[in-house]
């Protein structure tokens, strides 16, 4: 260490990393795009926040890595990291200014707006100083959050994160909160300064309070819960049910639309979770069944083709039936395949279905590239379900069905057989489990739920085009399962809210959605493969083990390699 040059030292590695990351964030366009939104009105936009958050994160990681060092040294490191990151951005700004280089001919986003955002609109002198200072502060903040012992450090980090989350979703709060309160906290775009400070310090205070008294509160609540477990449980159920039922009224039409979309993905997610999560069969052609469900709905109800004239409710079982048939048909050839082969073949299937739908060859029955219009709306009594809040209830019913199916099957011999299949196919077979039938049942059940979801989707849109059924849908669903926690039912909901809901609320995200999903998939697999909301059993086990045997956790991979 001693004889290495400073520029090659560890802190500089972190510094370069931070520098490269922020420059890439700028070049990829996220910084500018997010800057349309304010975080703290007039002080910092979300684009700028993104930079500082990144720097703070790197500072945090660096701080964690040198936990035993003195606080002062960590702060110095954080500062250096921030400095390097800031400097990199300044270099970027200067480069964009060099005319003959014409950076913009290559990097679309090396634009005057980027320069403006990076220099806080204050020109190169003061702007650079600002940028550098804030970067340094972020680095120091991240580093300190990592090393300050006990609740203070984690409290700082957590309250910053929570505050940021609140700030990102200001539009939602504004619709919920009374106008006066909203005005006090939030400006036209994002927080106002007082709102930000109050929120941050309130959360910090709350976290500190909780760390001091939380355990005691939990114990006393636990007493109540353990004395009357059933009562508490029922109360919770009733409350959540009421909230679920009232939700569209509370949030209005636009958010209902978002909820509908999330709901459609939850149904699909619950279905794919059976295939991937329970049975461990990685199916990337899942969108095919969604498409089949949707197209069945379209073909049988659309007056445009004029082939059939069924209603929504008459077609719904057909949608599911055809999806199931397709699930079994596509399942048979892939029975003998494992892991990656299965993934790529199912992906091929998904593409085949899409290409067939698109082709001129099948245009007379499927509508070709133009798609279908005039798909039937569901009717309940005399009510035609057509606006988002109405569809919300239909979708909610669908979710309940899907949830019920998934949880009933999971808690049965079939569910156990699937898990055994996921764990060790050969041994599962030696236990007398017929692999063919349980694999096909997994594909079929998953396909049924996807078909259901597709049918609702088609009816909701009223019209559709083949381009709605690309591989991206499969990837969305897979991502949300993984983010939520493979095999976990609540995880599907959490995953769908996070991955489908957020980008809808933060429109700026939408453009970078796939990039973020990709990064999230990689990041989850590297750092949190069990997901945000793992299966209850798994969680119980992980908690029971905390501290008791750190040994087990860290040697698990070794064992895997041994078996391989």
């Amino acid at each position, binding site marked *: 260490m001693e004889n290495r040059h400073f520029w090659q030292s560890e802190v500089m590695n972190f510094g370069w990393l931070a520098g490269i990351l922020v420059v890439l964030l700028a070049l990829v366009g996220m910084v500018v795009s997010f800057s349309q939104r304010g975080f703290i009105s007039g002080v910092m936009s979300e684009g700028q926040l993104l930079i500082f958050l990144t720097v703070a994160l790197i500072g945090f990681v660096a701080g964690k890595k040198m936990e035993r060092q003195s606080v002062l040294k960590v702060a110095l490191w954080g500062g250096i990291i921030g400095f390097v990151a800031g400097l990199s951005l300044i270099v970027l700004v200067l480069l964009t200014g060099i005319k003959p280089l014409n950076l913009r001919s290559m990097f679309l986003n090396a634009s005057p707006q980027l320069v403006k955002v990076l220099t806080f609109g204050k020109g190169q002198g003061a702007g650079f100083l600002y940028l550098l200072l804030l970067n340094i502060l972020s680095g120091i903040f991240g580093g300190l959050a990592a090393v300050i012992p006990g609740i203070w450090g984690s409290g700082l980090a957590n309250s910053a994160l929570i505050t940021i989350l609140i700030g990102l979703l200001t539009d939602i709060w504004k619709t919920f909160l009374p106008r006066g309160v909203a005005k006090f906290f939030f400006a036209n775009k994002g927080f106002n300064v007082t709102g930000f400070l109050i929120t941050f310090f309130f959360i910090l205070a709350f976290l500190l309070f909780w760390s001091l008294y939380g355990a005691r509160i939990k114990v006393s609540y636990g007493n109540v819960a353990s004395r009357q477990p059933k009562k508490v449980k029922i109360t919770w159920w009733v409350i959540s049910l009421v909230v679920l039922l009232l939700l569209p009224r509370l949030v209005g039409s636009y958010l209902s639309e978002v909820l509908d979309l999330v709901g459609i993905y939850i149904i699909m997610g619950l279905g794919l979770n059976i295939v991937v999560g329970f049975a461990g069969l990685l199916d990337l052609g899942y969108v095919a069944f969604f498409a089949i469900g949707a197209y069945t709905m379209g073909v049988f109800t659309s007056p445009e083709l004029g082939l059939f004239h069924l209603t929504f409710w008459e077609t719904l079982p057909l949608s599911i039936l055809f999806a199931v048939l397709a699930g079994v048909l596509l399942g048979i050839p892939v029975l003998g395949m494992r892991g990656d082969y299965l993934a790529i073949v199912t992906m091929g299937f998904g593409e085949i279905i899409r290409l067939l739908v698109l082709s001129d060859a099948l245009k007379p029955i499927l509508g070709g590239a133009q798609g279908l219009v005039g798909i039937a709306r569901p009717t309940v009594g005399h009510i035609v379900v057509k606006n988002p809040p109405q569809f919300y209830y239909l979708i909610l019913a669908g979710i309940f069905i899907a949830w019920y199916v998934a949880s009933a099957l999971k808690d049965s011999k079939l569910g156990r057989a699937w898990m055994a299949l996921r764990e060790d196919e050969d041994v599962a077979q030696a236990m007398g489990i017929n692999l063919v039938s349980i694999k096909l049942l997994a594909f079929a059940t998953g396909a049924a739920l996807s078909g259901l979801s597709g049918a609702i989707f088609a009816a909701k849109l009223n019209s559709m085009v083949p381009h709605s059924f690309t591989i991206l849908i499969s990837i969305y669903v897979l991502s949300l399962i993984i983010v939520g926690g493979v095999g976990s039912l609540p995880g599907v909901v959490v995953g769908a809210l996070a991955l489908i809901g957020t980008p809808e609320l933060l429109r700026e995200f939408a453009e970078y959605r796939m990039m973020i999903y990709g990064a999230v998939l990689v990041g989850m697999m590297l750092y949190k493969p069990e997901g945000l909301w793992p299966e209850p059993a798994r969680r119980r086990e992980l908690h029971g083990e905390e501290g008791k045997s750190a040994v087990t956790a860290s040697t698990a991979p070794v064992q895997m390699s*041994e078996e391989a």
Partner: protein
Amino acid sequence: MNGKDKGKVLEIENLNVYYGAIQALHGISFYVNKGEIVTLIGANGAGKTTTLRTVSGLQRPRPGVVRFLGADITHVKPHQIVKEGIVHVPEGRRIFSALTVKENLEMGAFIRTDKRSIQESMEQVFDHFPRLKERLHQLGGTLSGGEQQMLAIGRALMSKPKLLLLDEPSMGLAPILVEEIFKILQNINAQGVSVLLVEQNALMALSIADRGYVLETGFINIQGPAKELLTNPRVKAAYLGGS
């Protein structure tokens, strides 16, 4: 014999190794002197292979220390440990079946660059195992079990090791071949290579070794000069089939 008291080549101290929740080695310690043949004997699952894998860096101890010629190599990567001078002939031979015999031997000399001295080493290997020369351009996978074992040992010698780790060289071989291979091992040892030999075939192993350790479920329970172990009643009962 040829200067077996020049000091320790390999020193193992308090080695603990885990697979998941299962502890395979419980703080074992042993050493190999320069020029010695030392054998580790024990039943299946006793931890013999794990010990060798830990010495050659394929497995990490927690905690434990492996010292080679006085230097701590506990956390050195496997390929660098080869450069230090330890070479491990794994259980089941593990020759590269899609590479020719010659290519297998070349891989053995991977860490060396001087072509001429590599050629010399190859000649030496052929001295030990003339049969390999006849099969030079055959694919490794087409060799018989005995030839594969010879190739595995020959390949290991190509790196000019100071210490040879052998895992069950007798496995799956006819007794006559086992004797031939053990004789060659003695020759190799006579040329100054120290040997750590893991064997189930306790009798054969002890008959050529200087010292031996008996490994039982991750513990070293008996140790001593090979001659003594051969007559030790407990060893006899458990591993030599005597009564």
